[in-house]
């Protein structure tokens, strides 16, 4: 009973945040509602006994990605709202039906399979020690690959975002 109330609360917070993130006019409000959606998802992960992933979601998504998004909105002058301009792209009449179609397919598939209405078999323990052992034994290659990817992304983001020196700018203009 309590479980279901918490699930409904977290799920509605997440979905409300997501819908608000996609529908609001002011970009900063969108970014903050998206951060709220991420936090709601972290609560859902914690409810599903995935403690490490839930806390990592909070740390990375709310603590880093949301801040990155907010900084980008500030740097691209997204916070200056021009009244009267449309917020939707010219092809929005394609986007919304596609979203609705995907939703219909997914929900249809979920409802059509009775095996998905089950409850879990038993308690699940995913202590951090086991995750660490798995990362070092079975998943060590993906770990190294992700390390390489993060280094490349760090260097790439810095290189792309760097301001060009003055003389190069005057040459291209």
């Amino acid at each position, binding site marked *: 009973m309590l*479980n279901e109330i918490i*699930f409904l609360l977290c799920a509605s917070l*997440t*979905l409300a945040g*997501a819908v608000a*993130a*996609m*529908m609001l006019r002011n*970009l900063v409000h*969108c*970014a903050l509602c998206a951060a709220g*959606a991420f936090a709601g998802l972290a609560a*859902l*992960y914690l409810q*599903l006994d*995935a403690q*490490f*992933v839930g806390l*990592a*979601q909070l740390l*990375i998504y709310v603590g880093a990605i949301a801040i*990155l*998004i907010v*900084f*980008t*909105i500030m740097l*691209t002058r*997204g916070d200056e709202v021009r009244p009267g301009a449309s*917020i*939707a*792209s010219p092809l*929005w009449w394609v*986007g*919304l039906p*596609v*979203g609705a179609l*995907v*939703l219909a397919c*997914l929900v249809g598939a*979920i409802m059509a399979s009775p095996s998905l*209405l*089950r*409850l*879990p*078999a038993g308690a*699940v323990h*995913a202590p951090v020690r*086991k*995750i660490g052992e*798995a*990362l070092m034994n079975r*998943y060590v290659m*993906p770990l190294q690959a992700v390390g390489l*990817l*993060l280094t490349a*992304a*760090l260097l790439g*983001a810095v290189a*792309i*975002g760097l301001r060009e020196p003055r003389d190069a700018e005057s040459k291209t203009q």
Partner: protein
Amino acid sequence: MTTPLANYLIVAALLFSVGLAGALARRNAVLVLIGLELMLNAANLNFIAFWRFGPHAERLAGLMFVIFSIAVAAAEVAVGLALVIAVYRHRRTAQLDRLDSLKG
């Protein structure tokens, strides 16, 4: 745990479709990236739900996938936002319908 698996999957499906619709229907590049992040998060929720309710939860496969997915999403968002900033510096706009110099 008295909530069935289908509830979590429906939440994930709703989140995914909201992200998809928003990414396709909004004009600003940053909002498209937010929609992308929502889609990734929906997939992560799916993985965790199936891991929790599935038969071999002690093998931690779903958890591992989500850990790597979060790391990769962070990297992708960083590079994507750097690209948006770089484009803004050249074209003074972050609206996707104005970035059409390769059209036609």
